[in-house]
């Protein structure tokens, strides 16, 4: 096996200065959510660790995660793909195609067995032996199992590979599901989002690349540094929520003034992501900032929790549970009132019978 170069060697080969390299490492450290005292470890890893081989496969999905990934600003996606990782196989970004391309996948799996990082986008279609998602003449299930076997770590990019995604919405005709159950117990880092924030995608792959381990994750397998907080708890509109200042409609004064979108169904209070602090496009904006309530796209079941513009589901003409509950409450009250009258009538009848018994 030929020697793979480290990030430092890649910088040297391109004629970058040591100063440039260190600046890059500072950016990486903060991006991965480390404090600055981890800086020396990042430098050390960047100097010595060979750049990892990455196999990136796509299942049942829209490839929107890739669209997001290639817009990463820090680090630039091109830097990640061309110099920070050795991307050997990617359905979407590869120029090659056909049988040679598939053969290259088999070669890569065999050559770097147990060392490569497997990045997976897209759900796995489980129904009817997986025929609803095919890749290279085989089912995606087959491809995933083959690629997962020799992987050092698996990154599940996007809500599809993490939880099943929009195609898993009721009635889920293809039986789409998250990949976790199909990778033979290998550690899976979930990077949910529809799509995930680009910097989060690159940050996670860089963590695995530099340290060879998966980042610290919560109980659901999501990296804590990016999914440790609710959007609600990091939202710049939170003071409006606390004060009780809400936009009631998309076109009212509150919406124009940028008040809290809670009453318009914002899922920020239930959603774990970095939208509130990292934001999108190098910190330019995020859905709530642009006036659209969060739909909770990084949540495990968000596609079935409609309507997105309301806090409670509605049942046709019956309305939401508050309406139904109030109606049931009134009905119950009327019912017990009727029952009370009937009970009194019944008691009087009983007492009359007893009285008659006494007279006889």
């Amino acid at each position, binding site marked *: 096996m030929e020697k793979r170069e480290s990030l430092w060697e890649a910088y040297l080969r391109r004629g970058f200065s040591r100063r440039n390299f260190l600046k890059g490492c500072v950016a990486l450290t903060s991006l991965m959510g480390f404090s600055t005292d981890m800086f020396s470890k990042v430098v050390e890893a960047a100097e010595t660790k060979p750049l990892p081989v990455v196999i990136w496969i796509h299942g049942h999905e829209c490839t929107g995660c890739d669209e997001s990934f290639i817009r990463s600003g820090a680090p630039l996606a091109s830097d990640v793909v061309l110099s920070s990782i050795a991307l050997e196989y990617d359905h979407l970004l590869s120029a090659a195609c056909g049988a040679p391309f598939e053969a290259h996948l088999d070669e890569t799996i065999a050559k770097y067995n147990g060392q490569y990082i497997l990045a997976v986008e897209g759900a796995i279609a489980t129904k009817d032996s997986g025929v609803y998602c095919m890749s290279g003449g085989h089912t995606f299930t087959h491809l995933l199992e083959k690629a997962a076997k020799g992987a050092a770590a698996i990154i599940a990019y996007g809500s599809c590979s993490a939880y099943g995604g929009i195609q898993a919405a009721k009635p889920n005709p293809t039986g789409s599901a998250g990949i976790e159950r199909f990778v033979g117990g290998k550690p899976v880092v979930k990077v949910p989002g529809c799509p995930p924030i680009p910097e989060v995608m690159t940050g996670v792959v860089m963590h695995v690349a530099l340290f060879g381990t998966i980042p610290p994750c919560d109980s659901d397998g999501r990296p804590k540094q990016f999914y440790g907080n609710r959007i609600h708890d990091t939202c710049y509109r939170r003071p409006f929520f606390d*004060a009780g200042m809400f936009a*009631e409609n998309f076109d009212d004064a509150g919406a124009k003034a940028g008040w809290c979108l809670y009453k318009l169904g914002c899922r920020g209070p239930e959603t774990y992501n970095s939208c509130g602090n990292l934001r999108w496009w190098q910190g330019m904006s995020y859905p709530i900032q642009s006036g659209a309530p969060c739909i909770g796209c990084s949540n495990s079941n968000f596609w079935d929790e409609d309507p997105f513009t309301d806090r409670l589901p509605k049942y046709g003409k019956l309305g939401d*549970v508050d309406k139904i509950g109030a109606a049931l409450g009134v009905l119950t009250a009327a019912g017990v009132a009727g029952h009370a009258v009937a009970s009194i009538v019944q008691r009087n009848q009983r007492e009359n019978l007893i009285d008659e018994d006494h007279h006889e």
Partner: protein
Amino acid sequence: MAIKSVKEVKRKEFYLFSPFLRIFHWIMASQIVVLFVTGLLITKPMNVGATEPVFTNTSMDLVRDIHFMAAFILCASLILRIYGFIINKGDRLFPRFWEGHFYEETVDVALHYMLLRGHHASFLRNPLARGSYAMLYVLLAIEIFTGFAMYLMVNPSSTFGKLFGWVNTLVGSEMMSHYIHHYVAWFIILFAIGHFYMVVRAEFMEGESEISSMFSGKKILAHNPKDANELD
């Protein structure tokens, strides 16, 4: 000459409820009202009509704080319930579904409540009531678990966060916890309406101190209750 409205009757006094259960009952009743009202306001907040956050009395924050405070008081008062449960047999009137007569008696009481029978056997606590109170504790447990699962997720990595975080995983998502919490709250209110009616009805129909027993701890019965042996 005896006064017409006074007559001598023979009644038995049964000591049922320990002071701990009674105090718990009234804490629970009051906190459920507070929790329900504030809960509705949290789901559908009133608009304070202010133009600057700094000039409001932070209403949403206040409503949420009252909700959380009431929840903590309710949870803490469960200690009284548990203590009473341990020291006093009258606090332990289970639905005895493992005993055959429980089902016959349930049918008997149900038929009476459906007005198909003139009366039912006398109980310290009838099997239907027992079942409904057991159900209430289940509903309360759901509220407590889903409530803490949402409340503590401000920091999912904390010890308490880990203690309750599994609930969100179990029900599918945190939004689902919100839904369940909200729906079950309505069931508790429906229970409360029914409970209030049945207690007043029992007092009105039988006059056997159904209401005052939750203050005095005693029921003063003219009938001989079938389940009196449970106090021994």
